[in-house]
């Protein structure tokens, strides 16, 4: 493309084409499913928690570049973090992609700031947040599948 793309940055494309921590986690302590009925995206997040820390985290599913890269980068970010830190990341990430200025969004998000451009594309916010809602549900051990609708 002739111009730089504020949404489809190299990091996002890289994680879309080669997603990290992709696959089922056999000995997961908790997992949850998420789906976006509008586009048919679905994702399952598996988490293994030890001593209040996310020891292992993987995801399965198929979706667009934004949702797949978001899942991949989320697992990289959350691995090794405490449950409270994971929740805090979710809050900040959500604030960043929805353009919520009440919350101090971008700070401390590290690589996840590549999704900052999503707030310019309201139709794509759900693609970026689906996997985070699913993680939230997994950590809360919810049984009902998460839906963006």
């Amino acid at each position: 493309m002739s111009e730089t793309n504020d949404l489809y940055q190299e990091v996002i494309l890289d994680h879309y084409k080669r997603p990290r921590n992709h696959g089922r986690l056999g000995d997961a302590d908790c997992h949850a499913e998420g789906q976006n009925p509008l586009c048919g995206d679905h994702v399952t997040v598996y988490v293994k928690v030890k001593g209040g820390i996310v020891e292992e985290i993987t995801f399965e599913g198929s979706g667009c570049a934004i949702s797949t890269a978001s899942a991949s980068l989320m697992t990289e970010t959350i691995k090794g973090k405490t449950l409270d830190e994971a929740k805090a990341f979710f809050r900040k990430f959500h604030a960043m992609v929805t353009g919520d200025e009440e919350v101090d969004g971008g700070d401390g998000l590290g690589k996840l700031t590549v999704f900052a451009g999503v707030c310019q594309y309201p139709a794509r916010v759900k693609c970026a947040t689906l996997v985070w809602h699913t993680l939230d549900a997994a950590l809360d051990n919810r049984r009902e599948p998460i839906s963006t609708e």
Partner: protein
Amino acid sequence: MSTIASAVSRMVTPVVGDTFDVERVRRDFPALLQSIDGKPLVYLDSAATTQKPDAVIEAVERFYREDNANIHRGVHRLSVRATDAYESARRKVARFVGASRPEEIVFVRGATEAINLVAQTFGRTHLGVGDEVLISHMEHHANIVPWQMLCEQTGAQLRVMPINDRGEIIIDEYERLLGPRTKLVSIAHVSNALGTINPVQGMIALAHARGIPVLVDGAQAVPHMKVDVRTLDADFYVFSGHKTFGPTGIGALYGRYELLDQLPPYQGGGDMITSVTFEKTTYAKAPQRFEAGTPHIAGAVGLGAAIDYLEAVGLQGITAYEHELLTYATEALSGLPEVHLVGTARDKAGVLSFTVDGAHPHDVGTILDQQGIAVRAGHHCAQPVMERFGVPATVRASLAFYNTREEIDVLVRGLRGVIEVFR
């Protein structure tokens, strides 16, 4: 053609000789003349909804500015004018689709409501346990879900006629499915997801030979081709105003009068009765029986204006121009090896549904939007047909007579950009 004749012809229609003057009609659509992030809008989402010509926008505005009143009840001048405008719109719709009388046209919110109306009136009175409604595998959810609801209510069954890999109904299978328990066939005239033009006239004849009535969902046909419900011999025919260059929230149900007038009411309320006492209410005749409450009067007026506009442009010219544009677009997309068309029926309307290797339809849609190109990405409210072709979603570029070859070229360039990003 003489100079005078040609001048007159230009006044009433942009079709001069064999040339369709697309630049001239584009000027009638104010929304088309805008830029998205500095790039000219390329609107390729007319199967979702069409843009509106000035004539429609002005008719709706004029109605609210000058004639606004409730209909069928006032003695005052405004109410008389509003009633005239509403009933005149009904006459226009009736003439436009070839109904034998205006009373065969029921104003509804759109094709979806029209199908629900038939399901809940005809369906509830004509179907029982074990009876069947026959639809095709390419239907829009609007022609699936109302029948599923009816089946739950009545114990009837939904049967589905299969389609081939091009996205065409397999007529032999259709004939085989027409059985003694089939009480209604309901099929799209044109598929919104694939663009297939179904051979509805022949299909209706096959159903009628067995005494089975047929509903045709014409939402994607009426805006693009001349429809004549009597030539088709349809029992019910439905379409939406907003896909026909008219306002949202208005549409029409055509019903053969003998059939329509024997159906029970759909909703109860004002304007659908002849008299009400607490003991007994008698219902008005069709179509009033099906139009409870104050209808979308301005919408009907706008739809009437849309029909006037379409007739002035000329549907024959529109169909020919769109067909030529579809051929051009199909060839252009076929030149991209990463692009795969879904829906390649031999008889097709201006819908190009496709996938792009390595790119999810939503990403394609977003990147095209960055270039000012409006397409639809998703399942197009036709999940079963997506599943039939083994894709969760497609990108859909849908055409109208205001689109140009240059816009197709912009789409192709946009797709080359998409392919570059996801290489």
